[in-house]
């Protein structure tokens, strides 16, 4: 498999007229491709695997891999190309793990919710205040677990009790919910009707219905 056709520097004519100082274009390109492969691969890659993919001698690949490992070994690199399990793998150097961990810890994790949690949150947002039995009835499944998640994330809070048998707790969304969803207030939530409209239009594909203005009930 020939893969060296995109890089203009690999063009023999150009390489001849523009003498590269140290390495020639093809060498640079091979090094670059191998670096990219080692980076992308989830498992340690062997010289043989790369050689097969690039249609190059295994010995050449091995040399580049060794050179790459040596280069990344230098202290100004935070990454290393390590020889593990018969192959090569890119990883962060252990001496920087504390700093990396500090960085990761400082990140505000994005709001990730399960489908069930999202469904429940949506119900609360639109039907608030609402009780758990009401949510369960609408969702058709028992979903007390997601309320817990939502409360933990401070996306919902309790809002007293409903005056029916059992006096179930009512839930409503919080300020954090507004912040997370970029809303100034609840009136900015798209209405269910507006949502239906989007769905309906999406299903229709090219608009064909001349009376599509406000027929939706």
């Amino acid at each position: 498999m020939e893969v060296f056709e995109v890089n203009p520097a690999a063009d023999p004519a150009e390489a001849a007229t523009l003498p590269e100082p140290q390495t020639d274009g093809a060498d640079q390109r091979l090094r670059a491709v191998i670096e990219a492969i080692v980076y992308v691969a989830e498992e340690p890659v062997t010289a043989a695997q790369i050689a097969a993919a690039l249609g190059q001698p295994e010995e050449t690949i091995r040399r580049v891999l060794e050179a790459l490992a040596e280069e990344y070994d230098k202290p100004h690199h935070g990454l290393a190309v390590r020889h593990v399990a018969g192959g090569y793998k890119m990883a962060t150097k252990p001496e920087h793990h504390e700093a990396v961990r500090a960085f990761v810890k400082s990140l505000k994790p994005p709001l990730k919710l399960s489908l069930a949690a999202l469904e429940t949150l949506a119900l609360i947002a639109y039907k608030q205040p609402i009780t758990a039995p009401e949510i369960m009835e609408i969702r058709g499944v028992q979903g007390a677990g997601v309320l817990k998640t939502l409360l933990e994330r401070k996306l919902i809070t309790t809002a007293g009790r409903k005056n029916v048998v059992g006096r179930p707790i009512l839930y409503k969304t919080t300020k954090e919910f507004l912040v997370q969803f970029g809303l100034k207030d609840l009136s900015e939530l798209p209405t269910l009707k507006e949502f239906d409209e989007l769905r309906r239009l999406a299903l229709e594909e090219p608009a064909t219905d001349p009376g599509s203005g406000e027929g939706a009930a």
Partner: protein
Amino acid sequence: MSSPLNVQLEHYEGPLDLLLDLIRKQEIDIYDIPIARITAQYLDYMQRAAELDIELGAEFVYMAATLIHIKSRMLLPRDPALAEAEAEEDPRRELVERLLEHERFKHAAEMLYQKRIIEEAVWSNPQIRQFLDEEEPGLAVTLFDLVKVLQQVLERARHRPVYEVAGEDVSVPEMIARLKALLERTPAAEALSVRELFERQPSRRAVIAMFLAILEMAKMQAIRLVQRDLFGDIAIRRHRRFGEVFSSPEAMAAIEEGYR
């Protein structure tokens, strides 16, 4: 009528797309559209779409009306005096501006498409997973952790065959009394697993009664809730006011009153 659309009837997203295509295919100067010719070609397209049973949106009809209106305005004799003083507004002007704006966004869409092609040839391999801690340990027990345990138990109970014992209908005060007795038999330093307490209950109703009993007793400061870490098991043990709380007969009476 000769039409640039002879071969097959193309699909157009909207009337602006159709018009732009007619203009560009025939290399017409967009600032000087021969409106009669374009209108005829436009109507021809609509006619053939109708023949082929292709439904066009209302916007196509509306645009046809606009074109005919522009054509009629173009046919009106110009007032020579007025033409001298100030250039009369070209009736096509608004349409031309819309077409140009539309074309700009077609180019912009093309540009975005090109950018996507590059992005699809690029891969990232972030390794953040290795650095994500499992949840933070610590923190005091909240009511919420308790609900978490209850939920787990109820969930499991739901998937278990249920043997509801009809006669076993425990009230909350009864459950408090049982729990009190149990705690009295347990060394003060030892904690009882809430999960085990729940699991020992024969029915869902009993689990709920136990849950409410724990809540009541925590409120009365008869028991303390303890937990080693956030997802660890929650346990209860005697509060230092345990004896004091149950020594007053009013306390139990008030609870029994509350659950009547």
